[in-house]
């Protein structure tokens, strides 16, 4: 390759570069271009580490780079384009080819992956240091086994918890309510708080609240008396008296929360000078002050205790959870990051070198995509790499960081967008190393106009007036977007129809016990209708993305849209359970596990599967038998094969969709842990929890905004805009700055108590801001998904319950959008256009999606293969004559491992090894003791000397007895086989084995006269003598005889076969 000097290479962009890339501005392109340039420049693909947000994106980068190169080798124009605009360096045909070779030759060493993928590689090579389980199974948090694990951990934690403590803690989390479900409550607590604990496990951070001003008993007594004495100071006013009395009562009963929130105390705290138009005199204030301080202290102390108790709960949960995961060798993806972040730094100096050593290569080029979603823990691990690269001024190292603070929607998963701002400083990047991209290659100008309209004035959006600072901060990262394409488009903000909605009165206290009222949703059916209109619109709407905030809304919308018969699918697919055929199969599996579940039995019984399973009635005994048979089949055939067999058997009752879903169910079965095989219901749970691809790629896709990240659609419908932003985290967290480690953690409490302590207020405000930033990002992501058209549908406004005025919209997308876009007088009935821009009859410019033609495989006709038994047939069943003995095997024999049987078995093995070395006893020299011992040790090394010696003595005696003398002598034999192995084909089988001892007698012409076969047996004779043993061994011996006739030109009658039972010295003839 024509070498390129680094100077030449970096003349167009600096080696260290940070790109702020707005939605649709071509991030993947830039990343791929950089990759290609590095390849051109350094020719060392293995030294480049590129991390992306999804595995799919990683594949896109690699795919793009190799395709560019491949195309460039055959298309000069493409090569020119690549040279001029993509890498801006000369690029010959040979260069391209060389790069392609290099890249593909190093395919196994490329590091283009997700952060998790890269971390996994690092972690595996530090398995011991990180305390990874030796043979871990890496699973996702959503797997049912993880749910079970958490449940077990909670149970274990409760088992060793102090009961009153636990009850208190739970009540604290539940505002002193006595909720029924404990596991659910604890699970929720843990869900809400565990990640915080993992980031800050040390108790220190949880013990920061220091209540001051608390009075001791005496002081308190005095303070109360002082307050009581103040009665004389009150003005003569009913309100005053009542308020004062309430305060006194609260103080006496220690109800400090009541004390500070009511009456005079409340006014004094909020700094008011008068109460009910009477001045609060200094004396009165003085009477209140100590108690106010005390009540503050008491309340803050309560929060402090609650916080500590929460920490304690989490610590104990964590202990059990960690040890259970360890015991079951389960490793969560999140464990990797946490372990790396925590343990790696402990390894001390030379860490980067250690990592490079174990990964077998130095990372000199770093490309980080979607940086705004990086978590602190992830950055802790990546930072040393980045710093090392950025620190060097060499031009042979480089760093590219791409991201968009406006698309930081993974804060709830630990993403810290501020890292993106900070990295600039942290890595000391000069200003020319920071670029912004805001030209969109995706959206139409019309869509971008709406985006600009909403986001360029976010700081002054009335809906955000309480959060103007945060909104302004968000706005600062926004530059007006322009479109690189000349696309027609249409945007509306419109209202759906008035009516009752199920989630209108959704609150935290949603009741799990029983359905309260039967409700009718109107909003979602309306959206479904709108989607239908768009779908059926003349000229088409292309791909339609319906975006919502919650999974719950997504599934309801999928249901509503599906009900209208439109081709709709969910994010990352749907559930196999949406097929009635799958439902029946799952019922059958459930029935196999719970034959008493008559609902499942009935379901199967009334389906085409009943016949396949021979299920004839609901009689318990019958069901029980069928259930057992299913479980047996599942174990012997495996789940996947069983389900495949069922599927085949019910094919006549399936439609295409059902077949697809059943096939997917079978694929899930391939992934089912064999360890769970005894419980079919676990498979049912797995099947119900997994998402699978939709049977047909649908033109309409419903998903959460988070799921839509990185995707684009021709038309986008935003459907769940009315939810007010929730801002009630379980814990309040304080950090020095957003990217600093957690400094303090507090239990969240109500506004009144929060107001008593500055740190609580500060933490709460910071958290609200963070959360709001995330929410605003989500709106930005949502609005930037469409190529051409954007429809934002909000619920019509409502009156307050009193009915006298419009109910407030709260802080919601609906409110923000209304303020930014609408100036229309709204009606209460809805179905109103509040804003529109562009052309309602916009012409669709994209690819027309072919009507979903299921591209299923053609059914397989049986492929008729020859069944003729050709001579060339391979792998005949192999049998050994010794396996032929005695017909049916018995488990009790197979499992007989008593010392007697083992001894006999060992001795049998030895005898054979020894006899192999015994020639004609009357002629040849016999093996000496040392040889016998040597043979014994080689054959059965685990036997001890004493035992062997006793056997040797025994064997010597045996050789000396008359039978041996007679039997083992030459007696005129011309040939002797000892332990001679053989293999012959008999019928359809390959008979393999070994003759213990065969003497061959030939006449003078060399013709065989007769053959003597001896088989040594160590069995002892039973009470019935030798006869039963002969019967037992007859099949074996007869096989030997038949085999001999195949090997030697000898007639079966000329073979004398004898068993020698050496233990009893009995010799027995076995007739042919």
């Amino acid at each position: 390759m024509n070498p390129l000097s680094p100077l030449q290479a970096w003349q167009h962009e600096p080696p260290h570069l940070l790109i702020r890339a707005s939605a649709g501005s071509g991030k993947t392109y830039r990343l791929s271009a950089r990759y290609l340039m590095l390849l051109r420049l350094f020719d060392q693909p293995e030294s480049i580490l590129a991390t992306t947000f999804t595995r799919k994106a990683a594949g896109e980068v690699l795919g793009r780079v190799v395709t560019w190169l491949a195309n460039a080798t055959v298309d000069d124009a493409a090569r020119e384009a690549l040279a001029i605009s993509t890498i801006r360096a000369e690029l010959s045909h040979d260069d391209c080819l060389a790069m392609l070779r290099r890249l593909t030759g190093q395919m196994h060493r490329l590091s283009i992956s997700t952060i998790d993928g890269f971390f996994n590689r690092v972690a595996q090579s530090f398995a011991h240091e990180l305390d990874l389980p030796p043979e871990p199974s890496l699973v996702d948090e959503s797997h049912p086994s993880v749910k079970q694990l958490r449940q077990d951990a909670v149970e274990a934690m409760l088992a060793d918890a102090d009961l009153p403590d636990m009850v208190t803690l739970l009540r604290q989390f539940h505002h002193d309510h006595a909720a029924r479900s404990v596991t659910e409550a604890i699970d929720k607590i843990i869900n809400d708080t565990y990640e915080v604990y993992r980031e800050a496990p040390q108790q220190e951070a949880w013990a920061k609240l220091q209540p001051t001003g608390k009075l001791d008993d005496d002081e308190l007594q005095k303070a109360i008396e002082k307050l009581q004495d103040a009665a004389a100071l009150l003005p003569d006013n009913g309100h005053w008296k009542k308020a004062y009395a309430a305060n006194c009562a609260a103080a006496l009963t220690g109800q400090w929360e009541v004390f500070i929130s009511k009456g005079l105390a409340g006014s004094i705290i909020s700094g008011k000078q008068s109460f009910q138009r009477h001045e609060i005199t200094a004396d009165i204030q003085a009477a209140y002050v100590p108690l106010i301080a005390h009540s503050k202290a008491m309340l803050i102390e309560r929060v402090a205790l609650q916080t500590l108790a929460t920490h304690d709960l989490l610590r104990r949960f964590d202990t059990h959870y960690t040890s259970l995961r360890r015991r079951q060798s389960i490793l969560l993806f999140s464990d990797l990051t946490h372990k790396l972040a925590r343990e790696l730094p402990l390894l001390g100096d030379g860490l980067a070198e250690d990592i490079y050593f174990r990964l077998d290569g130095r990372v000199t080029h770093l490309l980080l995509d979607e940086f705004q979603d990086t978590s602190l823990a992830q950055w802790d691990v990546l930072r040393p790499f980045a710093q090392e690269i950025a620190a060097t001024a060499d031009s042979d190292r480089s760093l590219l960081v791409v991201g968009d603070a406006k698309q930081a929607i993974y804060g709830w998963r630990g993403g810290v967008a501020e890292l993106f701002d900070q990295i600039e400083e942290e890595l000391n990047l000069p200003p020319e190393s920071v670029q912004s991209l805001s030209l969109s290659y995706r959206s139409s100008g019309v869509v971008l106009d709406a985006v600009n309209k909403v986001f360029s004035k976010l700081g002054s959006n009335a809906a955000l007036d309480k959060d103007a600072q945060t909104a302004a901060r968000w706005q600062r990262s926004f530059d007006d977007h322009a479109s690189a394409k000349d696309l027609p488009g249409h945007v509306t903000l419109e209202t759906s129809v008035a009516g009752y909605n199920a989630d209108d009165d959704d609150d935290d206290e949603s009741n799990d016990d029983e359905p309260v009222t039967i409700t009718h949703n109107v909003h979602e059916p309306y959206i479904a209708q709108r989607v239908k209109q768009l779908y059926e619109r003349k000229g088409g709407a292309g791909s339609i993305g319906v975006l919502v905030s919650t999974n719950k809304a997504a599934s309801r919308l999928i249901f509503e849209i599906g009900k209208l018969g439109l081709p709709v699918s969910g994010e990352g697919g749907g559930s196999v359970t949406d097929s009635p055929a799958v439902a029946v199969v799952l019922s059958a599996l459930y029935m196999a596990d719970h034959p008493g579940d008559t609902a499942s039995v009935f379901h199967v019984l009334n389906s085409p599967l009943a016949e396949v399973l021979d299920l004839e009635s609901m009689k318990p005994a019958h069901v029980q038998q069928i259930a057992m048979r299913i479980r047996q089949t599942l174990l012997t055939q495996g789940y996947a094969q069983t389900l495949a067999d069922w599927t085949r058997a019910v094919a006549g009752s399936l439609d295409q969709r059902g077949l697809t879903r059943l096939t997917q169910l079978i694929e899930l079965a391939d992934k089912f842990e064999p360890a769970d095989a005894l419980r079919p219901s676990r498979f049912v749970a797995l099947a119900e929890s997994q998402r699978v691809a939709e049977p047909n790629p649908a033109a309409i896709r419903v998903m959460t905004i988070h799921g839509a990240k990185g995707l684009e659609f021709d038309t986008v419908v935003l459907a769940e805009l009315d939810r007010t932003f929730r801002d009630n985290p379980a814990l309040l967290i304080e950090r020095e700055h957003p990217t600093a480690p957690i400094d303090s953690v507090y239990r969240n409490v109500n506004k009144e108590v929060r107001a008593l302590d500055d740190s609580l207020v500060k933490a709460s405000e910071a958290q609200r801001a963070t959360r709001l930033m995330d929410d605003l990002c989500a709106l930005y992501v949502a609005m930037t998904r469409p190529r051409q058209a954007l429809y934002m549908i909000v619920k019509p406004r409502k009156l307050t319950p009193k009915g006298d005025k419009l109910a407030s919209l709260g802080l919601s997308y609906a409110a923000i959008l209304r303020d930014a876009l609408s100036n229309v007088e709204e009606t209460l009935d809805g179905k109103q256009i509040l804003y529109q821009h562009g052309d309602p009859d916009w012409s669709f410019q994209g690819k027309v999606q072919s009507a979903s033609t299921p591209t299923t495989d053609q059914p397989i006709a049986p492929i008729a293969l020859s069944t003729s038994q050709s001579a060339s047939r391979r792998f005949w069943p192999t049998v050994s004559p010794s396996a032929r003995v005695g017909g049916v095997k018995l488990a009790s024999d197979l499992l007989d491992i008593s010392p007697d049987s083992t001894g006999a078995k060992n001795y049998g093995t030895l005898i054979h090894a020894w006899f192999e070395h015994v020639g004609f006893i009357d002629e040849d020299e016999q093996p000496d003791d040392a040889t016998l011992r040597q043979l014994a040790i080689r054959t059965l090394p685990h036997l001890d000397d004493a035992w062997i010696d006793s056997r040797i003595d025994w064997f010597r005696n045996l050789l000396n007895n008359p039978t041996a003398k007679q039997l083992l002598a030459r007696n005129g034999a011309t040939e002797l086989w000892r332990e001679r192995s053989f293999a012959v084909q008999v019928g359809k089988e390959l008979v393999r084995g070994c003759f213990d001892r065969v003497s061959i007698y030939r006449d003078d012409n060399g013709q065989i006269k007769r053959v003597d076969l001896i088989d040594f047996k160590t069995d002892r004779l039973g009470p019935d003598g030798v006869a039963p043993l002969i019967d037992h061994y007859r099949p074996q011996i007869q096989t030997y005889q038949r085999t001999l006739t195949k090997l030697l030109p000898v007639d079966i009658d000329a073979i004398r076969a004898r068993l020698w039972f050496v233990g009893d010295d009995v010799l027995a003839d076995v007739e042919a």
Partner: protein
Amino acid sequence: MPITRHFLGWDGPALPRAAAYLRDQLGQGDDGSDLSHLIAVLPAQRAGRRLLELLVVNAQAQGAALNPPQIVTAGRLPELLYQPQGRQAGDIDAQLAFIDAMRNLPTETMADLLPHPPGPDDLPGWWAYATQLRRLRDDLAAHRMTFADVPRLCADRGIDLRGEQRWAVLEQIEQAYQDTLRSLQLTDRESDRIVAITSKRCALDEDKHIVLIATPDLNDTAAAMLRLIGGRITSLIMAPDQHADGFDELGILRAEYWAKQHIDLQADQLAFVGRNSDQAGAVIDAVAEARQTFTQTDNNLSADQITVGLGDERFAGPVRRRLDLADIPCRSAAGSPTAQSRPALLLRALSRFMESHRLDALAELLRHPDIQTYLQRDHDDAQQTIDDWLTLLDKYATDHLQGQLTSTWLGDPDRIARLKTLHNKITTLLPEHFATRKPLPKWSETIAAALKTVYADVPLREHIPQEQQLALALEQIADRLREQAEFKETNPTCPNITASQAIALTLRRLVDSIIPDEHDGPAVELLGYLELPLDDAPVLTITGLNEGLIPSSRNADAFLPDSVRSKLSMNDNARRFGRDLMLLSAIIHSRPFVRLIASRRTDEGDPLTPSRLLLACDDTTLVKRIQSFFSDDETSTPPTLPIKPAGKNRFLIPKPIIAPEPLDKLSVTAFRAYIACPYRFYLRYVLKLASLSDQAIEMDPMSFGSITHTVLQAFGQSDLKHETNETNIKSFLNSALDNTIESQFGEDRRSVIRIQTEQLRERLDAFAEQQAELTQDGWHIQYAEQELATTITVDGTPFTIKGKVDRIDYHEQHGYRVFDYKTGDTDHKPDQTHRTGRGDERIWVDLQLPLYRDLCKELKITGPIELGYFNLPKKRDRVGPSLADWSDDDFTDATQTRDTVIRAIRDQHFWPPNEAPGLPDGYERICADHAMQRDELIAASFKQGGAS
């Protein structure tokens, strides 16, 4: 005789040529059929078996009697080439000695290697680490190195090992291990081999001759031994002699040579598919095509002439299923793991049960089909007793929420008796004192005894594959147990463990065991990549030609990263690539039909890359292949099993059948169910279908409610019902609660239930306050938990309404109040739950309270009756009565609704199913709640359906 190389060529399968060569060139006897002096070395066992077949066939074709050679795998060869100096430690001896060596090292020392060592009793933990480290040790030994050699060699060669301490620890472990073995008078096989080489003590029996058959990958140790022997060695190489430079004198490949070669592959020999599972379809296509080709050339293709190579074992399932659909028998060479066989699963379930003694472990054990057979076998103790034991146990679990099994069983005495019978039968299987620690060998016989008991009468007939597989599994388990039994208790490395740990250890030792997949008659073979070169089927399809699978590569390692391996002349990525390239060349050239398949994505949609072997080609081809691999749009539909579906779905919602007698009585609460969904009403009240599970671990709303009712019933029927002192009421309720809980959930109940009890106590506490106040106000409980039934007449026909009224209070001035206790988390107003809709349009959806008015007539109550809930919700301040204020018109309306429902039920009007309720009720699947386009399904069910 020196070492000879012979090139078999690769224009045909290697094994038949090797077989012919053995007979023609090396055979003894007149006809060359005596091969007993030969040691034939093959890379894998399967090839050895096939070689023997070929030799037999050849001999028989000649009418000769084969005297077979000794056939060994390359891994076993070294032991034929030297005499060990003593007793070689067996697998279990070596492993336990190694563990002992690790455990006895001071923790501080070990910390350099294992900063987080397993606990002292965690034998499985140590076992796993020992296995890992011994693997590293074996790997080094295969290259004639020890732990001690590595740092030394690295220092010599200027390699920075990063962490010499770790190697120092490994060396110490090694020493301790050797010391232990020495004290046991055992030697280590790997060390023996190295010593044999260094001391040049390798020898081959005089009359023997070694034939290496296609072993291009023979390891260093074996090669070194062979070189020491120096003669009577023939190497048969599966390549033509123009590639002579690609092999050394022993026929071991030179990776550098092969890395530069191209794979000679026609475009039609290659298929790229979308997802991994799609490969199965491509396999079938290839088979169909091959059959076509073979038929044309007048040869009929039979199944055993086809081999499918698996780049990844996980592809076996999909491939097998497709072949199955095409009616092609197949057999997986990998067999199935013994650890997943029925007896192994049984042992594991037994071990879990012994270890935890939990109800769920028992439930799992009982679901083992062989346990069921065992339980049903003895008819003596009334088969009936345990006929429905799964259901029995499910119900027990649900009712009593027991986690740990204790000596006391709870609840109904009859049920207890049956459970005891069941439990006893299971207990007889368990080894005595299973929880105490004993030396490992002590457990073998008792574990075997448990298996014997279960499998005593299970037939194991020879001609039934399934039974044979079971027999084999039992045999393999018995072998392990026997080895463990023979382990010496006096051996200081002998672990003291519990029965369940002994089982765990036995199962661990089975991880590498398999049960071969037997198939009568010809079958397509599914083989791993390394088995393919010596396979001689004319038709071959290989799946998984993706990077990482073929060739595999090592891209991160804690001890020996690839570049270090290269510098230490160990097997490295480059060598694996060269080897796989050589093998693939041989594979492709040596058979008439080859199809290679690579997929673009995993089944989860994650992108894959093609194998580098496929890219070892000329430039033009490279570009084309890259373009074709990376250019597809990925919106492919998920593949389905290639079955022809009928096209019409017959999995319907079962249509109600008309019963001869319609219902003529109903409980007050059932009306709500009918109004909500007539079909679900049908399932519950007509068919009485129940759902059952054993997953509950805490009181659900039902059982929480029923405990509350029991306590309040006791109160309402006690002398304290007129009590005005709240403290007395509280203490009564407290003890009633404790008694109820204890009798329901036992003394050793789960902690969750203890906490729930406290939550309930809190609610009862608040109830006591309210109750005291009511009594002070002059209200008195007149009836508590009163079962009532009344018969009304609708359209001239009587209909019975029944129900249990929670309580009726009476006040001298105000008359009667009928209460229903509500124990849900939230409090309800009666109107909220009974009616829905706005303003005037409110309609009745529940009739419980209004119907109480009907029931009260039976009590001959006169005077005004108020209706309401007595809420006991989670918020303390909401505990108390909540009365309805329905007007007479409302009641008239309710009565009409009542009659409408009764008429509908009489008409058996149970269709169509309504929308799904918010909470699971066990009918989701029957009612197709999750079905796409459910409305259509409901319509179709009505049209075509009909329950049987």
